[in-house]
């Protein structure tokens, strides 16, 4: 069900992402900002994105298929913490309709 995140919720999610990356990658929280590159600057890997997404799906009880999120990420590549936060906002706000506005249905390619 599409919903609109409040600014306070977005702030909370952003901070949650920073904390998650700090814990998982053993990097001081102060070293993680909007423009920090997750792989290049923090020594993250591709799986960390998968872990982040799964983490938020559980936390917010979102049922979006990982393959749909994958298709979204093909259109909106992410490198930085700020870009990752934006993707998480979109997943939580748009749910299964993640790609509907871009001409693709949840079930497959248009």
């Amino acid at each position, binding site marked *: 069900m599409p919903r609109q995140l409040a600014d306070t919720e977005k702030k909370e999610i952003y901070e949650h992402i920073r904390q998650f990356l700090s814990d998982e990658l053993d990097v001081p929280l102060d070293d993680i900002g909007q423009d920090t590159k997750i792989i290049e600057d923090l020594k993250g890997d591709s799986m960390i994105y998968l*872990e982040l997404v799964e983490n938020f799906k559980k936390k917010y009880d979102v049922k979006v298929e990982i393959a749909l999120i994958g298709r979204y990420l093909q259109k909106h590549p992410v490198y930085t913490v700020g870009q990752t936060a934006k993707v998480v906002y979109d997943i939580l706000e748009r749910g299964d309709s993640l790609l509907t506005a871009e001409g693709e249905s949840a079930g497959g390619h248009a």
Partner: protein
Amino acid sequence: MPAETVDVMTLPLGDEHVEVSLLDVTRMAETDATATRFLTLRERAEYARLRHPGRRREWLGARVCLKTMLLRNRSVSDPTECEIMKDARGRPWLSFAPGLPGRKVYDCSLSHKGRFASACASAMADRAVGVDVEEISPRLLRLAGAFVGDRATFFRSRPPEERLALLWALKEARAKAVGGGIGTAMQSVTCEETAVGRHRITAGDGLQLRARHLVYEGYIIAVCVNDKRRDCDNAKTAC
């Protein structure tokens, strides 16, 4: 320091047109001297921008792997005669110094995880490759839900963490071979082990690719080959 002294192993994952190599980066001594020996000025500037020491070591290790293969197959006589560039989507490609004899490598892929860095090179112009290294660890068990859309048939039963590491490595290697990023790796696939260590990977778009893997000291190394190079942005320009 001679470039040939770096302990790069050739892995039995390739064929007459595809080479794969592996380096234990924890055994790579004199990192800065190795960087000076193997990297061009532009590569050294990129190396210097990497802040995390572990990331610097892995980044360098993967490039040492690739350039050592090029030295061994005589594509170059010095590692600084070629440069590893990246396209807009982060996919690596090779730029050779002018005046070198006929090109022997047309596509390449790099990967690193934990102790190991790996590189893969293709000697065929229409063949794209992807390599991935994954550690077999309980970390994957937390992500089992992300794999529910995949179907995998393997020759023998494996512990869950090995099965998931293999599946993810195959999906990542496939994503690199078709030129996609993390979004491509999240797509559901069907993996069928057609012979021991050999796989057929089919994605939702119908594209069918072949792959191989081996397990080495707790890590999976997977290589995927895209013969048609259908989705690779570099097909006509970069390589």
